[in-house]
């Protein structure tokens, strides 16, 4: 694999039935490329949680994935409300998800902690009223 592979996804903030579709597509691509199951699992977990957060907290966004020889890089960017206190948001169990979202199975407050746990490189840039950007890397 000389050149890297780039994938781009627009994530809808209104259509819940599509949530997870981008992550599934990346997983399928990685399998076809013969990437190791461990790396695929890490990417699937991190990307799914980021994708869902975009949908339930930020009204959708965009995801760019780059697959290189050594790693898989993901950039997830939204123009939602931003995160007021990142340290708090990173705590296991912390969630601001409202009741109607919780009743769907979200709101455990485990999304961001899982993203950090299952990636080799994790950066979060967020500004109130502007949006949130996650920059993630999983080594192959």
């Amino acid at each position, binding site marked *: 694999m000389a050149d890297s592979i780039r994938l781009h996804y627009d994530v809808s903030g209104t259509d819940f*039935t599509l949530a997870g579709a981008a992550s*599934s597509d990346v997983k399928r691509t990685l399998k076809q490329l013969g990437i190791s199951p461990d790396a695929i699992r890490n990417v699937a977990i991190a990307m*799914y*949680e980021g994708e869902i957060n975009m949908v339930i907290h930020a009204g959708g966004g965009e995801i760019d994935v780059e697959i290189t020889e050594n790693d898989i890089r993901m950039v997830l960017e939204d123009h939602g409300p931003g995160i007021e206190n990142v340290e708090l948001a990173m705590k296991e169990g912390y969630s601001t998800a409202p009741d109607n979202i919780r009743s769907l*199975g979200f709101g*455990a407050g*485990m999304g961001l902690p899982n993203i950090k746990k299952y990636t080799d490189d994790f950066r979060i840039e967020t500004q109130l009223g502007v949006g949130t950007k996650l920059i993630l890397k999983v080594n192959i």
Partner: protein
Amino acid sequence: MKMWVKKMKIKDFAEKLELKVLTAYDDSKEIKGCYCGDLLSWVMSRAKEGDAWLTVMGNVNAVAVAVLTECACIVLTENASLDEQAKQKAEMQGVCFLQSSENAYELAVKISELI
């Protein structure tokens, strides 16, 4: 500790546990384990490929998690319902939904005797 792993086809699994089959399914899939939970972020990082996932979440988000974790089937416990949108998405994506009147504990005990 069990030193072997038994595998079971969905059809056999559903019959032995008297589960109602709610969606069309691919019987080549094998059940190798079991995971119980309703909070999707827990399930996403804990359920393993081939697990029977016991939950009350019969919605499209559960379907997405089942696809990503590659669990063998979703068993809706305590007769939890499967919504129509989820049923359609499940059949499109090859996710099998089963249903039981028992709770997750009762069912998991029986599963542990089977596999």
